[in-house]
């Protein structure tokens, strides 16, 4: 087994640098952080099954909370994971509406990923095939695969943990979810890469 890669250009590293610079007084870097991590946060939110407007609110709320608590965050380098946790919790809070507040520990598992019929209709032929294979994975794996796809290899382990998956479920090793995706695609003659 190789040691955990610490590629300097992983999304999490860049986000950590932007946030550390922001905390040190370079206020402009907050914009870079928003640009960097909004795609992964959007997908973390959408993977929970929230409506688009709920997900927009959740992502925005996560940034507002980050700024509010900027000084009390112990590990600026881990800011990406921190944001993913808040986004996921926020979507579930919004989805529950007024019912009750829920703690981090209570966040339920994500549903199977779904796409609107309209969204499905714009997929290419190849994407339609891929979508079938994604749908054959467990909901947990679908969620993980979707979110890490918007980050870089060095970030997978931290993101998995932020989504509530066991430590060591992915990165640097492939883990069961990536392995299943690989096998299901590999077994499809229509998907020869």
């Amino acid at each position, binding site marked *: 087994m190789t040691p955990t890669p610490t590629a300097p250009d992983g999304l999490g590293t860049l986000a950590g640098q932007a946030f550390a610079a922001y905390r040190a007084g370079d206020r402009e870097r907050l914009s870079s952080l928003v640009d960097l991590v*909004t795609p992964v946060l959007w997908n973390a939110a959408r993977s929970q099954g929230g409506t688009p407007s709920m997900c927009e609110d959740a992502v925005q709320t996560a*940034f507002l909370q980050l700024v509010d608590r900027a000084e009390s965050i112990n590990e600026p380098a881990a800011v990406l994971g921190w944001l993913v946790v808040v986004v996921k919790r926020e979507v579930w809070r919004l989805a529950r509406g007024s019912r009750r507040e829920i703690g981090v520990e209570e966040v339920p598992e994500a549903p199977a990923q779904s796409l609107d019929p309209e969204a499905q209709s714009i997929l290419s032929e190849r994407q339609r095939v891929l979508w079938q294979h994604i749908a054959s994975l467990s909901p947990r794996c679908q969620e993980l695969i979707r979110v890490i796809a918007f980050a870089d290899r060095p970030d997978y382990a931290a993101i998995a943990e932020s989504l509530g998956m066991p430590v060591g479920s992915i990165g640097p090793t492939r883990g069961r979810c990536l392995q299943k995706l690989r096998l299901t695609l590999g077994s499809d003659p229509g998907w020869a890469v």
Partner: protein
Amino acid sequence: MSSHKDVIDDKDLANLAQVRALYAHADPVPVDLTERIKFALTVQALHAEVAELMDSAMLATRGPSAPVEPMPTESVTFSAASVSLMVTANESDIEGRVRVDGWVTAPGASIEAVTSEGSTSVISDANGRFVMDDLPHGPIHFVIMVEPGDETTRPVITPTIQV
């Protein structure tokens, strides 16, 4: 035969790239989401009052990825409890730049124009008028301090418009 205990390789990364392309295509990040988040963060940072866009026949609030529209020549008015701002955008004498003619209901107010290039500030004259003639095309919003230097008054921030 590959195992889940193997190190992630290029084939896995290629698979993930396809997954990413699929979701980015079928469920994209809303085009103006990052701009709206930045705006919300600015409002929070400044403890600002948000002015309302009163009329927008020509200038619509929209994301930065929207195609550049023909240069609007009608005025836009923003209104807040403490101040109102009217701006008109035209082609500047400086090639490819935008000129904004503005009027605020407060003489001696500081008006900051925040654009993709950063920010520029001017002070309104005795009649509340001001001009900025070297602004870039694209998204712009204004931050108004009715009494610059007085830390106790809240700044007023306008929604982002496209010029």
